């Protein structure tokens, strides 16, 4: 079973990108200012999906309008994808067998218990 799930069950959340596409109309990037600083301060929680709903809009609107910040956000997001992709190990083939044996033993023990 480990063989199939190694590929089929990709690690981590298959979350779609949280970084919005940049608005074409805002091609002229603003210089990094207070808006950028505020958005970047919240970027980590934004990408983690942990920002309260009331604050998501502000960050996401800023990203949509600011190329440098979008670029940075995309980088951070892709970096996480690289980490996620890099941390996959398939369980050794004998581990399932070892576990089944352990469960068999546990069953014997479990069956002997009165009702714990």
């Amino acid at each position, binding site marked *: *079973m*480990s063989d199939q*799930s*190694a590929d089929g*069950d990709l*690690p*981590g*959340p298959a*979350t779609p990108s949280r970084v919005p596409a940049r608005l074409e109309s805002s091609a002229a990037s603003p210089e990094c200012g207070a808006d950028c600083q505020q958005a970047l301060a919240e970027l*980590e*929680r934004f990408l*983690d*999906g*942990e920002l309260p709903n009331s604050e998501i809009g502000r960050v996401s609107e800023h990203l949509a309008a600011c190329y440098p910040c979008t*670029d*940075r956000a*995309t*980088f*951070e997001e*892709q*970096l*996480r994808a*690289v*980490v*996620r*992709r*890099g*941390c*996959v*190990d*398939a*369980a*050794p083939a004998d*581990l*399932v067998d*070892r*576990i089944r044996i*352990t*469960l068999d033993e*546990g*069953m014997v023990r*479990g*069956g002997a218990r009165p*009702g714990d």
Partner: protein
Amino acid sequence: VSDTTSSRRPTGGPVRQDLSDAERRTRFEAEVLPHLDRLYSAAMRYTRDPHDASDLVQETVAKAYRSFHQYRPGTNLKAWLYRVLHTTYLSMYRKAQRRPQESLQDEIDDFSFYDAVGRRGGRSAEFEVLEALTDDEVKAALADLPETFRLAVYLADVEGFAYKEIAEIMDTPVGTVMSRLHRGRKALQKALAEYARERGLLDDPDDDSMEGQR
């Protein structure tokens, strides 16, 4: 699938006591064994050793089986399993080590992989660097992080747990999780940047003013 939701009552009693041993075993195998590769990957990050990782997963699954009656159907099975994994790890390995808690240097807060790549200039250079990083480098960089940072980053970035879930798995306040995550990610970026630099994908920071500009 027999759903026993209607018969469940807030008596405080174990939810699955009513299952026969055979039913319990079947349920357990169906629900838990599909997580085995993931648990093993996690155990590799915890122990950093294939043999220890196998032992940890085996013990985790045994423990989870013994306490499967405590798991409430409909709640997050994965988070529950990782909580068992975490406590099993602590009881198997932490005791033996008794290492003082490691920390990260304060300067780590200022590091940004993005800025380090950006120095090199050129659009999309930063994404090429990311693509060039190998799985082995990612694993090694993560393995080098102090334990609490390593686990927080793994649980968030690879397993996708929410702050609150990580706090429960690691039995630590949410604020601590956030700071470990923030600093752990910075340290991970620094380590990855180091690998990129060794391979000539990044400029040496000391050469900063030398070439190219001005």
